[in-house]
């Protein structure tokens, strides 16, 4: 075993560093639109050099590089070291673009990919509906063809759309053949959200958060989208969306984030004067065992990916492992913050309260850890996936109709 990346990678790292040192950071007096323009130009340069949008063809604005997870990792490390902006994030890059690359028409690719990766188009996810949850195939939002067959007319409601307040577009599942079997009557559509038939409403979460970056509900009242914005065959939208979900799952992880959070938990124990308590020490190291199991497993997955080998079942477990570790950390944090937890942390609650954040800031993590079980598939769905895909156990009877 060897955790170093090898000489070739280190040479590449030097090249990336040299690039960064001449192009980042922006002049310190840059503000507003000027700063935005600088960032845009920086991304353009970085893409030209092959550092960003590596999986995307040049004609759509990518850098079209061969798959090289080591180089990709070096890029991530170096950009993150100097806090340089990397690819535009969100659903657009994680879900729309991969779906279009695999299933989109040439026109759709031309129309959407470049705009998405330059940050002009921001995509909301239109899968969940009230009363649907993990059972995505039970979509009830209706799509009907206009009389002339040129447009889809959409009526219904979507929920849990992340970045909903910023989103310019949405990819969505709508039921277009009400009489077809559950999975076969769904069509995958792209839609412009800036139209009279679309209303959005932010969802206030249990943390009180309800700002620009919260989830939204969307209401569709005779909203329209051209038939040419339909991805894949009519009625086959469920299968189109399955591709996308895989991308989403692969993008959740973050061993570094977990490690940083654990380090903060240790700091919290020091801050509240409990670090010498044997109970706290024991719980901390217990949790650290899981944190490191997660971290080293991510090395393992990464290493297999770099070598083009099958990493086995462990990638199926990373999401649930992260969720469960988050719960354990939250429980210890609750023990540690004690009366500090009586105060709402600054920045939460949507009442404009701002200020310095003490140990009470852990309330965000404590409640946030509950959100993890919900985002990206509830924990019981993850358990099914591990049991069925990972261990080869037979499917649930109730889901035997699902694929």
């Amino acid at each position, binding site marked *: 075993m060897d955790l170093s990346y090898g000489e070739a990678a280190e040479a590449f790292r030097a090249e990336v560093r040299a690039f960064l040192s001449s192009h980042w950071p922006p002049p310190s007096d840059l503000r507003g639109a000027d700063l935005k323009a600088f960032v845009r130009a920086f991304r353009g340069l970085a893409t030209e050099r092959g550092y960003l949008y590596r999986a995307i063809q040049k004609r759509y604005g990518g850098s079209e590089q061969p798959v090289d997870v080591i180089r990709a990792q070096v890029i991530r490390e170096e950009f993150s070291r100097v806090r340089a902006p990397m690819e535009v994030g969100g659903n657009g890059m994680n879900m729309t673009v991969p779906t279009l690359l695999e299933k989109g028409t040439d026109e759709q690719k031309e129309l959407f990919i470049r705009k998405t990766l330059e940050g002009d188009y921001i995509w909301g996810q239109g899968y969940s509906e009230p009363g649907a949850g993990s059972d995505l195939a039970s979509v009830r939002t209706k799509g009907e063809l206009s009389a002339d067959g040129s447009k889809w007319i959409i009526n219904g409601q979507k929920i849990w759309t992340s970045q909903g307040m910023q989103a310019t577009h949405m990819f969505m599942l709508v039921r277009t053949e009400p009489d077809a079997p559950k999975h076969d009557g769904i069509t995958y559509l792209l839609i412009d959200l800036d139209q009279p038939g679309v209303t959005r409403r932010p969802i206030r979460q249990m943390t009180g958060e309800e700002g620009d970056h919260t989830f939204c509900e969307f209401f569709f009242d005779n909203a329209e989208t051209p038939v040419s914005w339909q991805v894949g065959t009519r009625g086959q939208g469920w299968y189109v969306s399955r591709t996308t979900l895989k991308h989403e799952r692969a993008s959740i992880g973050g061993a570094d984030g977990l490690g940083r959070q654990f380090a903060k938990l240790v700091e919290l124990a020091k801050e509240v004067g409990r670090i010498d308590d044997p109970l706290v020490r024991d719980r901390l190291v217990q949790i650290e065992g899981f944190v490191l199991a997660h971290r080293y497993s991510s090395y393992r997955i990464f290493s297999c990916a770099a070598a083009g080998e099958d990493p086995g079942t462990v990638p199926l477990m990373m999401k649930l492992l992260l969720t469960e570790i988050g719960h354990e950390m939250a429980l210890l944090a609750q023990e540690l913050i004690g*009366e500090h937890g009586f105060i709402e942390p600054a920045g939460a609650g949507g009442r404009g309260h701002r200020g310095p954040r003490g140990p009470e800031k852990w309330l965000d993590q404590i409640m946030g850890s509950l959100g993890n079980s919900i985002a990206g598939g509830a924990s019981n769905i993850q358990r099914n996936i591990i049991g069925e895909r990972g261990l080869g156990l037979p499917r649930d009877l109730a889901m035997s109709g699902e694929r």
Partner: protein
Amino acid sequence: MHFHLTEEQTAIQDAVRGTLADCWPIERIHAFADGEADFDRESWDALMALGLGGILAPDSGMGLLDAALACEVAGEAAAAGPLIGQMLAVAAGGGGHLDALANGDKVAALVHGGSTYVPCARAADVFLIVDRDAGIRLVPAGDGVAIETVKAADRTRPVSKVAIAEDAGERLFGPDDAMTARLADAALVLVAADALGGARKVTDMSVAYAREREQFGQPIGRFQGLKHQLAHMALDVEPARALVWYAAYAWDAGLPDAPRAAALAKAHLCDVYVRATRAAVAAHGGIGYTWEYGLHYWFRRAMFDRAWLGSPAEHRARAADLAGW
């Protein structure tokens, strides 16, 4: 032998439950939580009209068990108001305000010795300071009491930062007076009761949701995964009820293990409450995470109950000491 509720006790609980259901439908909880007040006069008067303020008065003919049954329902309803402080101030004799406290005209907030956070402090007419090491004081609001409003995490019983001058008010009992320890123990039992009510409430909400909500063409409560999680919530909560009953009974009967039973009940029920509220959010999925659905009010109360008057670990350590281990 009688170790379950009498018909009368059940009837009282039902009456309190009914009153609180009227006072605190979810819309009113939302409105209160988003407002600035730490007290709600209307619901308070309704509870006081039921006589809850005077349950622990020396001549009430009732006891800590009855008080705990009321606090349990308040926990269930996520009710605002310093019910525990009020009851204990009356139990402490009221320091000259006994009638006004028993009938609710004056409001008493409970101050845990050594803590600067006090729930419903801005509404309080008097402060009851309970401190095992320093005894019990009753301090009128006003001179010698400085109150700083903060943004409280528990939206139904908002705390303020309170500083009370050392010589303010009247000392009711010294640190060695048996009443000091007894009132401190009673406070633990009442918080345990609040936790029981809240834990039971979120379990019931989760079960109801699992019976209604359908996925994959089935009520989700049919799936063993969730069914077993709900069974574990119930297994965690329902047997723990008897710990609260026993601790209250032991206090009322003056049994020698009453202090230990109080410590154990506080530690155990507050852990149960935190587990139950976390499990409830998970059982609900997305909707449980919304502000609007309201589960978070109990989650926040669970956080508060757990840390208030000392953490579970602290009371477990006390319980171990009290056992003579």
